[in-house]
């Protein structure tokens, strides 16, 4: 069977909603089924990758270390919108994983190149 190219599109900030956590679960499951996985972070989704998250005072789980573990699951293609970064005053060094910064016009093509898109 042909391995499908799956793009996980993340648009929500962490903690305010459960989307970010659900996406992590889906990505880990998908990798177990040998999907060819790419992650895309646009809009507020890139806040999920912010370094230094500390949820101790909120008494909820900090799920951000999971992004660093993705590499072990062969999830290595992580893309972030350059425009979304600029609008939020963030730089590559603010993020906890290595990402590829893409322009929004390139992201259009990226979506086109994948067989399946999962939206979070």
């Amino acid at each position: 069977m042909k391995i499908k190219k799956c793009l996980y599109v993340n648009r929500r900030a962490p903690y305010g909603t459960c989307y970010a956590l659900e996406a992590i679960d889906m990505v880990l499951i998908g990798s177990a089924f040998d999907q060819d996985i790419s992650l895309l972070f646009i809009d507020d989704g890139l806040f999920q990758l912010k370094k230094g998250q500390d949820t101790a005072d909120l008494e909820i789980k900090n799920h951000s270390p999971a992004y660093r573990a993705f590499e072990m699951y062969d999830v290595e293609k992580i893309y972030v919108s350059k425009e979304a970064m600029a609008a939020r005053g963030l730089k590559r060094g603010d993020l906890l994983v290595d990402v590829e910064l893409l322009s929004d016009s390139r992201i259009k093509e990226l979506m086109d190149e994948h067989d399946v898109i999962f939206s979070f």
Partner: protein
Amino acid sequence: MSILHTVNKSPFEKNSLESCLRYAKSGSAVLLIEDGIYAALAGTTFEQRVTTAMSELDFYCLASDVKARGFSSSNVMDGIKLVDYAGFVDLTVEYEKVQAWL
């Protein structure tokens, strides 16, 4: 009769902050909580909007929500006061009413 306005949504995703700033009367306060704290960060496209509003409104931001999202007091704009949960409670007592912009 001042109001404490709370905003818990990201300004990039919802217009809760916009509406709050449109209807908040001079002398009232805005407390940014949960995803609302993204409006308190320096260097975003909302910085100017919030800075302008500061001339009429007092801004507060919940420190634990800032910390949870990977930011610190140094990322928060000058003029926005950080409060803890006890400070949140004090604000609700200090102001006549609370209006939550959801």
